């Protein structure tokens, strides 16, 4: 396993376009679990201080990055903020952030933390403007040149007992529960095996299989490899206008 330089960016979609920085860094639910697992496995993991992120600071971090963990969020330390227009907010972040990656750093693997409600679309009444922001960002990422892995965590739950395995599915109407450690494991499997994970979109959920023990990252990697690649992935590194 090769050590990876990971940059975490958690743009608050409600503040897209309202700040002089590239993004406003917020808080996402699995950030501590993901950073902790990354460190435990010998990777470097950097994220900007919460708040406005300047272009030069971001450029410096990205210049040595192998992977960007992109976790758009509605959460800041003072509470939750939904964007007024999620679709527009997602595209603004796409242009400010992903277009630059696509143009200047197309080799960086982007692991996008989306949400399972994106797959349900209008059929699920729990969708919010943030959901459509994630939908726009998914599309923007698949339209660019960076390899991607798009994870759609299901409902967040507390940390499970070890029998709960981390599972991936390409079912657009997936549902279930996943813990922060389950999300972190899926992220790290993608980071460590981009060949298996890139070009995939998958919902993440936990499934109790008594007696099975903790999910190995190699098992999640095998699950990535078994998923059909997104159609758009056949155009990665081609110039598509």
């Amino acid at each position: 396993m090769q050590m990876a330089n990971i940059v975490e960016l958690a743009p608050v979609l409600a503040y897209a376009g309202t700040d002089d920085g590239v993004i406003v860094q917020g808080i996402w639910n699995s950030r501590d679990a993901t950073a902790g697992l990354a460190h435990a496995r010998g990777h470097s993991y950097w994220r900007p201080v919460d708040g406005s992120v300047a272009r030069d600071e971001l450029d410096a971090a990205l210049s040595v990055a192998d992977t960007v963990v992109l976790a758009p969020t509605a959460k800041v330390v003072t509470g939750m903020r939904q964007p007024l227009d999620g679709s527009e907010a997602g595209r603004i972040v796409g242009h400010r952030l992903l277009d630059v990656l696509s143009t200047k750093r197309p080799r960086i693997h982007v692991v996008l933390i989306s949400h399972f409600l994106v797959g349900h679309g209008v059929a699920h009444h729990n969708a919010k403007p943030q959901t459509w922001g994630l939908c726009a960002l998914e599309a923007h990422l698949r339209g660019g040149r960076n390899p991607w892995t798009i994870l759609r965590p299901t409902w967040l739950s507390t940390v499970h007992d070890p029998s709960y395995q981390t599972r991936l599915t390409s079912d657009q109407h997936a549902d279930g529960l996943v813990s922060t450690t389950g999300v972190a494991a899926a992220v790290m499997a993608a980071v460590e095996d981009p060949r298996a994970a890139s070009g995939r979109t998958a919902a993440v959920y936990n499934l109790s299989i008594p007696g099975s023990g903790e999910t190995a990252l190699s098992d999640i990697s095998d699950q990535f490899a078994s998923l059909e690649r997104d159609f758009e992935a056949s155009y990665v590194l081609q110039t598509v206008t």
Partner: protein
Amino acid sequence: MTVSVSGEFDDAAAYALRDILSDPATHVPTILADHPGVNGRRISALREAHDYIIGRKLGASATRSPGDAARLIGRLAGVDQALASTLYWHSVLAPFLASIPSSRARNAVLGNVKRGHLLTWASAVPSWTWRSGSAPDATRPVGKADALIEADTYPGLYDAILLWESRSAVLVIVPTYRAADWIPADAAGRWSVRLDGASLHADDVIPLSADPRALALWPGDAQK
């Protein structure tokens, strides 16, 4: 019985869809309840059937060719003619999209179909206004639209409605979640869909040389 995960319509799909339509899940009141004359219970059952079709990615097979799309409709008609009718436009649009040149917008909508999305076509566009005067493009990538469009069947069955916007000469992909609302348009089951400043991106529009229904690539037996 083995259940395919490859998006192929098999005996298990036919069995499951018959089972759903003959004994749908408990009807949950929705906005449909606000519209007298609308058979909300039947629409709920069709929505449940579409959920199954999406989960199995059965609509993706229509991207392969007009013949594959016709075979899908044929298999669905063997289960329920009304269900097959709801996917008529999907069976026209999916192979058409697969046949036109690659672009970010084309690839995005086709990728969504291959992931399971279901499409329909706007049978009429009574009004369409871009607030900036024209469709979004590379220099002005986000636009807002006010519009009234019509669909043959309940819009909530689909992930996106496609339409031809003639003044900008673009095929527009309108995700159904961008609709402000929809109401029954007539006794024939058509619906009016209203957009109120809906944000659409340059990757949601596909410039074409002409109305797609006039192009040779448009499946020949499709309604004009």
